[in-house]
């Protein structure tokens, strides 16, 4: 990094950090640079990767790509109020494609796989291994089993959380809370690493205060 880019990076870094105190002109300037440059970055990337790389280069061999381009063109008709309603066609296409695609994907990876993963013997470390688990593992197995079941109970929509069902849902929300608390606590460390990186940059690369 030469001098200019180093000072530029430091200027931008401090501009963002200054937002923690309050909104100020320095932050506004940094934000404006960020928006302008990054939006430009994405237009160019989209143009070269998607339009040029995926469409323009292959349009001869793959005539079906013109269907995509046609839908894209319909999208632009929004600019003409009279035929603007045609832009709903590509939207409808996208909504249909996204729903259809993810329906089966989520079905397989979220429902089937997770249910299957939960079907485990309680007193063993794996299926078909006999009584080989220690106390902590057995407790963990029970916790996973009851936690998953009660967690599911919590999500039931068509039953009031009352009586035995309500107790199940209550336990379920407790498990969800442990999950949230634990993941929160666990992530703190990686978030700090990012700040360590920036402070290393400021005091080290920029100011040269770290030996």
């Amino acid at each position, binding site marked *: 990094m030469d001098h200019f880019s180093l000072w530029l990076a430091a200027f931008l870094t401090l501009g963002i950090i200054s937002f923690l105190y309050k909104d100020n002109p320095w932050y506004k300037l940094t934000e404006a640079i960020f928006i302008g440059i990054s939006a430009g970055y994405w237009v160019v990337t989209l143009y070269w990767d998607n339009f040029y790389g995926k469409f323009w280069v292959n349009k001869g061999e793959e005539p079906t790509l013109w269907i995509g381009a046609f839908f894209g063109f319909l999208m632009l008709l929004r600019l003409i109020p009279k035929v603007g309603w045609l832009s709903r066609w590509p939207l409808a296409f996208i909504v249909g494609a996204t729903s259809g695609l993810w329906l089966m994907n989520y079905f397989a990876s979220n429902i089937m796989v997770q249910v299957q993963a939960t079907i485990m013997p309680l007193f063993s470390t794996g299926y078909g291994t006999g009584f080989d688990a220690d106390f902590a593992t057995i407790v963990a197995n029970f916790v996973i089993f009851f936690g998953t079941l009660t967690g599911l109970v919590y999500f039931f929509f068509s039953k009031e959380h009352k009586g035995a069902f309500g107790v199940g849902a209550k336990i379920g929300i407790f498990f969800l809370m442990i999950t949230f608390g634990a993941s929160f606590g666990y992530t*703190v*460390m*990686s978030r700090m690493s990012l700040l*360590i990186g920036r402070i290393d940059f400021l*005091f080290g690369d920029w100011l040269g205060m*770290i030996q």
Partner: protein
Amino acid sequence: MNNFLLISLSDIGVIISLIVIFGGLLWLFVRSIKAKEVDRRIIFIFIFVAVAAPILFPITFQESATEVVKGVYNKIENLPAGSRILISFDFDPAMAPEVQPMANAISAHALEKGHKIIFMSLWATGQALLSQTLETVIIPQFPEKEEFVDYVNIGYKAGNEGVLNVIVADFRQMFPTDVNSVPLDSMPIFYNLKSCKDLDMIVSIGGGKPGPKEWVLFVGDPGNIPMGVGVAAVVAPQLYPYYPKQVVGILGGVKGAAEYESELVKNYQKFEDMETPGLRMMGPQTLAHIVIMSFIIIGNVIFFRSRRKDGTK
């Protein structure tokens, strides 16, 4: 007590910054008893100081190794001298700050115990990092160790899990030569070593795919070879189910590296002055965690005090 808390209070800056942080927290705690809320900007300053101070004036905390980390340490400690260990660098530069310290510490430990190391990588970008470890850690620290006898770098081969599938049965099929095209057959370290099954231990350091998990599934488990793993913190929970059966131990994130380094520093005179990037990174981490926990406590004190106040009204 001093040894219990801190192993190096390098200079006056450390003491001042610690006084500032803990003095400030104490002041806030006293205020909290009067149920006074803390402005978020004050919290921000505390976090900044807690992270910046240990970077400027290195503060290192004594880490005591947890059992999962000791698992790897003890395995290397207890193998007879001359055992052959494979260490795979399965990470890229983005992951390196978190996991390379582990690779360095484990390699140094193994060489010091007189083991022989085969270095390799399943990641194309891992190769440069591997050379870096060799040049900056292994060679300067162990000038007496000979390449091809005590260690060798067989480099990277494309093919992800496919590579593992092959070397579990035959090394030379995948790696006929080392990274500099020296045939494996000419090296003493590879004498009588046909496949991974002839190794005494495998250590995989990484955090993505392919990585430690694939090593366990494709090599360690089927070949019944002792495995130690070092992983980025985010993926560590996914590996704990394999401990202690399929892996002898796990180093998770910077903390894992720091624990390993502190074991080395504690037990080996040679390593007393070694570079300990893991421990160094743990300084800001630990202080930041303490600050956050202190603020959780302060928040709760404020909550209970103000509830009492409201109750008496």
